């Protein structure tokens, strides 16, 4: 067991960092981004723990970045309609990486959850250091947002 007094309480363990990097790499956002760079970037991300039933964000809140589910599950809802039940490895809220828009849904932790925040601030600082990879990431982000738009259009067309 690690000693909270002697250990750096802010530093993620190496294995946990690798787990976070591996999960992000499996998402379309990090397609073709080298593993080493993803790990470096994950070292700057922010882990938060949520209790069951705790609000992650509400409709209309100001969003600061994308969120990856590391442990537990998160329910995303609009009004009373459930949009998704997210499990470890899923991510949401990526619109906040692209635009200073407000959250478009409610997100609540269903069980005790650990979430990893990839903030717009982190992305901008990373782009300043790695503009080429940053451009690749932004292309991935655009593709992801476009994909979500197509799906939303499909849903509307079906209704």
């Amino acid at each position, binding site marked *: 067991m690690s000693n909270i007094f002697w250990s750096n309480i802010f530093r993620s363990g190496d294995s946990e960092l690798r787990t976070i990097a591996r999960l992000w790499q499996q998402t379309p956002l990090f397609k073709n981004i080298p593993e080493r760079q993803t790990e470096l970037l994950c070292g700057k991300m922010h882990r938060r723990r949520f209790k069951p039933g*705790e609000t992650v964000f509400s*409709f209309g*809140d100001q969003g600061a970045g994308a969120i990856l589910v590391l442990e537990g599950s998160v329910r995303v809802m609009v009004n009373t309609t459930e949009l998704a039940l997210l499990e470890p490895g899923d991510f949401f809220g990526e619109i906040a990486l692209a635009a200073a828009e407000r959250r478009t849904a409610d997100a609540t932790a269903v069980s005790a959850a650990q979430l990893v925040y990839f903030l717009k601030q982190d992305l901008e600082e990373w782009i300043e250091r790695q503009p080429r990879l940053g451009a690749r990431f932004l292309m991935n982000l655009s593709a992801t947002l476009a994909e979500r738009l197509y799906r939303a259009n499909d849903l509307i067309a079906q209704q």
Partner: protein
Amino acid sequence: MDWKSSPHLQTFKLFALFVAVCLASFYLISSVLLPVLISITLYALFEPATLYLVRHKVNHSLSILIVLLFLVLTSLIAVGFALPALFDQVAVLQSKLPQIAQQLERFLTHYGEVISAEIGTDLDVSELTVTALTQFSSLGQSILINATNRVLDIVIIFILVPFLTYYLLKDFQRVRNNLMNWLPNSSFELGWVIYHNVTAQLKAYTRGVMLQSLIMAAVCAAGFTLIGLDIPLLLGCITGILNLVPYIGPIISMLIAALVGAAMTPFDPTLIYLGALVIVVAQIVDNVVVIPAVIANAVNLHPVQVILGIIIFGSLFGTLGVILAIPGIAAGKIVYNNLFADIQNASLKTGA
């Protein structure tokens, strides 16, 4: 709606708490406030240079060292070449202060008599001006003597600033992230949004205003040299620094240039007008070319907010307050607006 639950009141309470925390932090570091502020300014100025080197595959620590080495070398060159010349000009200005006071007294007495004759009262302007000028003269001399005597402070700044700047460039992001982790889940994203907006604006403002001051100092120093005014380099530097204070700064620098022109022997009134003209031309260059290109919309404040802010910050924190007024108000405005938007959104949901 109950006024106690009004979003404005709740925002005001939170904002007051934020201001109190900021003031307490400033008070805690008041003994090293100046080196800390200089280091933060240098951090904002040199961070892009460090990142440029990092982008070109230079190690991060080495990039910082290269940038700092450049800073130290530039400072040494300034100390070696520019500062002796500047100190000579300070000495010249110091010796000219009594003459400046005399010229100002003559000028004010003359116009005082004219005003007295116009309004038909027996105003003893000369006595008033003599009292004011004696105080002005002793204040001016004491400022100059203090500035030249505070060598120890300058040495401390020269030692402390590179260290602080190095650690800011190296560890600021890590320390900031650790501090932001203390925010509760409910305010985590809001905290980052506010931080992101405030720093983006302050960085743009700091970089813009430094470049603006440098341009103004160069334009004015060149102008003063062209018209043959005494101590052009010092006057250019003073104008550049005073340019940090909008509206009021250029007027003060115009007055100083006019007074230096008035104190020159033989007395040549055209120098007074030309000195003022140089600053007017520099202001036109500033407003037409520099501000749109360099500062643009770095801070979007109403002139009334700026003037009131300068007066309030100046009366609370002195000279430093005058310089910090604009970034302070700009940051405060962003914090208030973001807090208000969040509280309003929450109250709308509760109401709905």
